[in-house]
């Protein structure tokens, strides 16, 4: 990516970035975000992430974007996973270990049914 050299280019890059972000939130696309701050990692978020990626690979699901984020402020609920189906509001799950992650992927991401017992509010 060539370096930005002017204010106009900077503004254009921002528009592009905003568009890319909005594209991720279109119907048919699923965003799965795993919190990987130190608190998350200490609680086992790396296993959670592996479980999510594993699921996608073995079930050969497409249309899912998996990204990571920092600490959200509910450190006692870590590992935390956010799921957004298309342009629907995000659903935030707490205490997501590897098994719960698989359940979320199967039940919520593939079948559209949020896993109520693990939902938290942030």
């Amino acid at each position: 990516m060539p370096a930005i050299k002017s204010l106009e280019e900077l503004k254009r890059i921002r528009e592009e970035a905003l568009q890319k972000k909005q594209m991720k939130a279109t119907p048919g696309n699923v965003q799965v975000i795993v919190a990987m701050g130190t608190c998350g990692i200490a609680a086992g978020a790396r296993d959670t992430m592996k479980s999510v990626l594993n699921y996608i690979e073995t079930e050969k699901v497409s249309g899912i974007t998996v990204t990571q984020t920092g600490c959200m402020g509910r450190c006692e609920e870590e590992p935390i996973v956010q799921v957004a189906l298309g342009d629907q509001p995000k659903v935030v799950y707490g205490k997501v270990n590897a098994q719960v992650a698989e359940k979320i992927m199967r039940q919520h991401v593939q079948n559209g049914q949020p896993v109520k017992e693990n939902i938290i509010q942030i």
Partner: protein
Amino acid sequence: MAFYRSHVLVCVDPECLAKGAHEVVDALQDEFIAQGLIDEIQVLETSRIGGRGNGPEMMVYPEGIHYVGMTPDDIPYLVEEHFLKGRIVERFREVVRPIVDEELGALRPKEVRVVLRNCGQIDPNNIEDYLATDGYQALGKVLFEMTPEGVIDEVLKSGLRGRCGAGFPAAKKWQITRDVQDSPKYMICNADEGDPGAFMNRRVLEGDPHSVIEGMIIGAYAVGASYGYIYCRAEYPVAVQTLNIAIAQAREFGFLGKNILGTDFSFDLEVRVGAGAFVCGEETALIASIMGMRGEPHPRPPFPSVKGVWDKPSNNNNVETYSNVPQIILNGAAWYASMGTEKSKFARLCNRDIERFHGNGIFGATIDVTITRADCVRADDHSFNY
């Protein structure tokens, strides 16, 4: 040293004591002795575990089971079931919080999200996420539409005060560094955060590293610095990694390096990792450490702004201080100054300590509010009834 296979932590804070916590502890001890488990299981007294206050509480490790509401008479059964047979006693198990609605919760009253606006909302390893939330637009505004003096003026009017703990007006420090006739000048970010248990800076470094980087670049423009150091403690490996990735991406996009955004302003950054010394959170010791010397504090004057790293003018500010700068530039000094009191205009982060408030976490608030337990709890959080 005895080796215990399990630990039982019983809450003995005043609430639980009133509900018979000590009797429970005694009953546990008696039962463990009777069952011959006293050398394998340790009973410890502790403070609030975080339940709803429905009776004596205990946590069993390593499983992490939270039991609530036992009476001393229930203890023999519980010990037999859990510790001898290995079965969790569901009757006493703390119920998981009730279901909540699926939307992103509203801010708790009194909470202000300035520095934390992106934390947990963006991917810190992806600069495009930051760009999508107006990232680096403040830098563009500063480089193309403002003079260095104008930047200092804006920050001065906002009333931004240092967040390391001294509260010295940031703009004043920038002005002092700017006025010194020497070069090269340096920007330093104090990311040592030695306070035990504090992780406000860590959260920003891991969640929104670009806000700190952008703040430093803007400050460097104001002050006339050409290089910067972020001194991050060694105990924050994830933060160090996140910062390095962020710096590399910022360089790629032309926000760091020579001729930033095509102007003739050049600035670059590097991360310096600490080595476990609490004293290196103090700025002169920190500077000594950056130079590879033993982290020993030096008397001031001369202040780092006059003689700092390599004996050159160095502006040292906290992670949070820098993180506020892009927002101040974008939203204006008046917006920032409208928060807080006459003398203390800011929204800053404070750690909520686990014992005194329910749960733990970081809370952004202005100086003039009193944060009570109730403010830290989300509206639907029924697990706490004070």
